[in-house]
C-alpha cells in the first residue's frame, strides 16, 4: 500500500512540477501574509500586539483541545486503519455524562436528581445558577472530567464490541461508512436523552481572570484557560511517557507499523486494540469536557462540528503520530484565530480546512510522516 502511494506521488514529471508550483505559490502567499502582518504591527499600527497575543492565546486553547481529541483519532486511524467518523460524537457523549455529574455535585439538593444528571434537559436547571467553575466548585469539575473520560472509554469500547470488532478484516472504507452510522445513531441518541437545546454551563462572571500586560495593551487570561492548559498538557505528557516507556506503547507502535508482523511476533493484537480505545477514548472525553468548561456552552452536536477540524489536525500531523496530532491541533487552532488578521472571521473554519487540503496536496503523508504512533 505504501509503495503504491509513493508510486502515485511520483507519478509523472508533470505532477511533480505542479506540486513544486503549489509549494512555491503557498510560500509566496505566506511571505506576503507575514510581511503584511509585520507592516501592520510596526509601521501602520493597524494590528496591536495585544490583539495578536489574544488571538495566539485563543488559538492555543482551541489547538490543545483539538490536539488532545486528535490523539485518540490518530491512534485508531493507524492501528485499525480507518477514519472514525463517530469520534466527534464520542466527544459529545462523554461531555454530557461528565457534565451531568458536575451538575449533580454542584447542585445537589437544589433540584431533582434526574434534571441534574440530564444537564438541565427540560430547562429548569442552569449551569450559571449553580455557579459552576474550577475555583468555585473544583470537586464537581474534576470529578466531571474523570467521569467524562470514563464515559467516553465506555462508549468507545461498547461501540467497538457491537460494530467494529467483527469488521476487523474489512477495508477501511467499509469501516468508515459503518462509523458514519455510529455517528448518526450516537448523536441522535444524545438528542433523544438530553434534548437538542443549547445550554450555558459555567458562570463566567465568577471565574477569576487576570490581565497580563502585553506591549500596547493586555491579554485576558482566566482560570478556565489555565485549567485547560494544565490538564491538556499534563495528559499529553502522560501519553508521551506511556508510548515511549511502556511495553504497551511499543506494542502499539509495532501494530500501527505492521499488524501481521505484530501478530506473528506474539503481540496480543486484540488487547492492544482495546487499550487503544481506552487511551484514545479517555483523552477524547477529557478534551470534550475541557472544551465545554472553557467555552461555557454545551450542545448535542458540538463534537460532530469539531470532528472535521480534528481530522484536519490528524491529517496535517500525519496519521498515526501522536506528536503529529498535537502539532496539527495547534496549527489548526492557530490558523482559525490568526486567519482573522487577514480574512473575515466567517472564514476561520474555511481557512483551517484550506490548510489541511494544502498539506494533503503538498505532503500527503503529513508533517510527522513515517513516525507511526511515536
Amino acid at each position, binding site marked *: 500500500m505504501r509503495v503504491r502511494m509513493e508510486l502515485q506521488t511520483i507519478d509523472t514529471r508533470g505532477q511533480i512540477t505542479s506540486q513544486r508550483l503549489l509549494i512555491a505559490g503557498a510560500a509566496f502567499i505566506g511571505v506576503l501574509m507575514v510581511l503584511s502582518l509585520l507592516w501592520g504591527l510596526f509601521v501602520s499600527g493597524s494590528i496591536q500586539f495585544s490583539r495578536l497575543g489574544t488571538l495566539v492565546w485563543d488559538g492555543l486553547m482551541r489547538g490543545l483541545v483539538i490536539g488532545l481529541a486528535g490523539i485518540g483519532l490518530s491512534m485508531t486511524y493507524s492501528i485499525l486503519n480507518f477514519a472514525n467518523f463517530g469520534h466527534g460524537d464520542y466527544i459529545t457523549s462523554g461531555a454530557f455524562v461528565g457534565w451531568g455529574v458536575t451538575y449533580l455535585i454542584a447542585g445537589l439538593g437544589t433540584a431533582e436528581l434526574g434534571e441534574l444528571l440530564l444537564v438541565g434537559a427540560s430547562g429548569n436547571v442552569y449551569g450559571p445558577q449553580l455557579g459552576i467553575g474550577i475555583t468555585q466548585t473544583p470537586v464537581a469539575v474534576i470529578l466531571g472530567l474523570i467521569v467524562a473520560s470514563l464515559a467516553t472509554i465506555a462508549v468507545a469500547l461498547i461501540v467497538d464490541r457491537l*460494530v467494529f470488532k467483527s469488521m476487523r478484516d474489512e477495508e477501511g*472504507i467499509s469501516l468508515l461508512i459503518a462509523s458514519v452510522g455510529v455517528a448518526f445513531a450516537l448523536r441522535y441518541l444524545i438528542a433523544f436523552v438530553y434534548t437538542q437545546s443549547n445550554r450555558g454551563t459555567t458562570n463566567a462572571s465568577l471565574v477569576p481572570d487576570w490581565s497580563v500586560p502585553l506591549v500596547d495593551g493586555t491579554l485576558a487570561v482566566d482560570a478556565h484557560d489555565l485549567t485547560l492548559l494544565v490538564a491538556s498538557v499534563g495528559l499529553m505528557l502522560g501519553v508521551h511517557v506511556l508510548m515511549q516507556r511502556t511495553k504497551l506503547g511499543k506494542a502499539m507502535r509495532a501494530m500501527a507499523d505492521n499488524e501481521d508482523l505484530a501478530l506473528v511476533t506474539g503481540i496480543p493484537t486484540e488487547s492492544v486494540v482495546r487499550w487503544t480505545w481506552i487511551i484514545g477514548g479517555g483523552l477524547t472525553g477529557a478534551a470534550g469536557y475541557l472544551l465545554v468548561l472553557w467555552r461555557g456552552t454545551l450542545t448535542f452536536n458540538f463534537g460532530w462540528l469539531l470532528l472535521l477540524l480534528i481530522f484536519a489536525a490528524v491529517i496535517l500531523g500525519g496519521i498515526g503520530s501522536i506528536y503529529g496530532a498535537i502539532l496539527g491541533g495547534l496549527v489548526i487552532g492557530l490558523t482559525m484565530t490568526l486567519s482573522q488578521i487577514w480574512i473575515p472571521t466567517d472564514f476561520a473554519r*474555511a481557512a483551517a480546512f484550506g490548510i489541511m487540503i494544502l498539506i*494533503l496536496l503538498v505532503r500527503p503523508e503529513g508533517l510527522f510522516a513515517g513516525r507511526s504512533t511515536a
Partner: protein
Amino acid sequence: MTESNTLGDLWEYDVTKILATFLAIYAGYVVMGLISGLPTRGIVATLVQLTLLIALYAMLTLALNLQWGYTGLFNIGIVGFMAVGAYTMLMVSKPPVDPSSAAAASQIGGLGLPVIVGILAGVIAAALLGFVVALPALRLRADYLAITTIAMSEIVRFIFLSSSFQEFSVFGNKIGTGGGRGLIVNFEEPISRIFFDTGAYEGLVTAVNEAMGVQGTMAPVVDTAVISVVLLVVVAGYFWLFKRTGESPFGRVLKAIREDEDVARALGKNTNRFKIKSFMLGCALMGLAGAFYAMYFLGAVNPTAFKPQFTFFVWVALIIGGSGSNTGSVIGSAIFVGVLFQGPLYMKNVVEALFTVASAPPSFAHALSGIGPFIAYMFENISHFRIIALGIVLIVLMKRRPDGIMGHRKETAASIPLIKLSGYGRDAAADGGDAE
C-alpha cells in the same frame, strides 16, 4: 425472443423491480392512510410529496453511483456541489433589482437571464468545482479524498454563509449570495411556464377536482404531481445516461479503475483523466439536482439547507440499493425516503389518528418512570428516533450486506447482450452459459 409473460420472466426486467418497489411503498402508505381515516385528498397529497422526494434522492444517488459505484471515488461532498448548482442558478436567473426602487435596499437581485441559462450555469459551475477538487485530490487515498470533499463542501457552505459575498456587482447588476438570509426563488420556474399557464392544465385541474369529488381545489396537489412526474422523467434521463455510460468503453475503463487501478494503468489507460471526467459528470448532475432542489423543494435557498448530513442521507440510499447498480440506486432511494425517512413521521400521524397518545413527559428522566411515559416520550421525539434507526440500518448493512439489495450483481460491460434474451435466467444455466 419467445413471448412468455409469466411473472418470473417479468421480474427479470429491472423496470419491474423499480415499479414493484414504488407500488409496494405506495400501497403501504394508502393502507395506513385508510386505516387512520385520512381524507383521499390527504393520501394523494402524501403520495405526491413522497414521489417528489424520491425523485430528488434518486437523482443524487444515481450521480453518486457513477462516482463511487462505477469509479470508486469516495465523494462525501455532495451537498457542496448541490449548493453551487442551486446558488449559481439563482444568481444568474433571479430578476435584477432596480437600484432606484424601494426594494433595492432589502432585496438581492440576479442577472435576470432565462432559467434554462441559469440551470446550465449551475451545472457547469458544479462540474468546474468538481474539476478543481478532483484534479489534485484524485491522487489521494480514498479516505483522504473523502475528507477533502467533505471539507470542500463545508468551505462552500461557509462562503455562502459569509456576509462578505452577500452582495457584489456583476455587469452593473447587484447580485450576491444573501449570506445567512439566503436567496428567494422569485421567478417562474420552467415547469410552471410550460404546463401551468396553459388552458389545458386548467381543464386537467377541473377534471381532477370533479373526479375526486372533494371539497376545495386539488390544484396544489396536481401541481406537485406534475412536477414530480417531470422530475421522474429527469431521473429516467439520468438512469439512461448512466446505463449508456456504464456499457460504453468509457464505463468499462471506470469499472476497471474501481477493481484495480494499477491494472487499468498497465493497460495504457490514463486513469486520472477517466477519474476526473467521471467525477465531473457526477458533480454536474449533482449540481442539476441542487437546482431542482432549490426550485421545487426549498423555495428559498439558505446555507443551512446544505449541511453535510444531507450528503450522508444520499449515501444511505446508495448503500441500501447497492453501490454499482443503477436499478439499486433508484430502489434504494425509494426505500430510504419511503420507509426510513418519511415512514416514521407518517406512522406517527397514523397512530395519533387511531389512539390518543398521552402527553409526553418533559424530559428523559421522567420518561423512565414507566413504560407508558417512555412510549409517549419516544413518540414525541420520533424524528430523532428515525435518524438513530437510520444509523443502525447503515451499520447493519455494512456488517451483514455491504452489497445492498442490488450491488451483488455483476453488470455486463458490453452494450449488446452476451446471451440470448430468451435464455436469460433459468434456461441459461441449462445452456451452459455463464450468465451471472
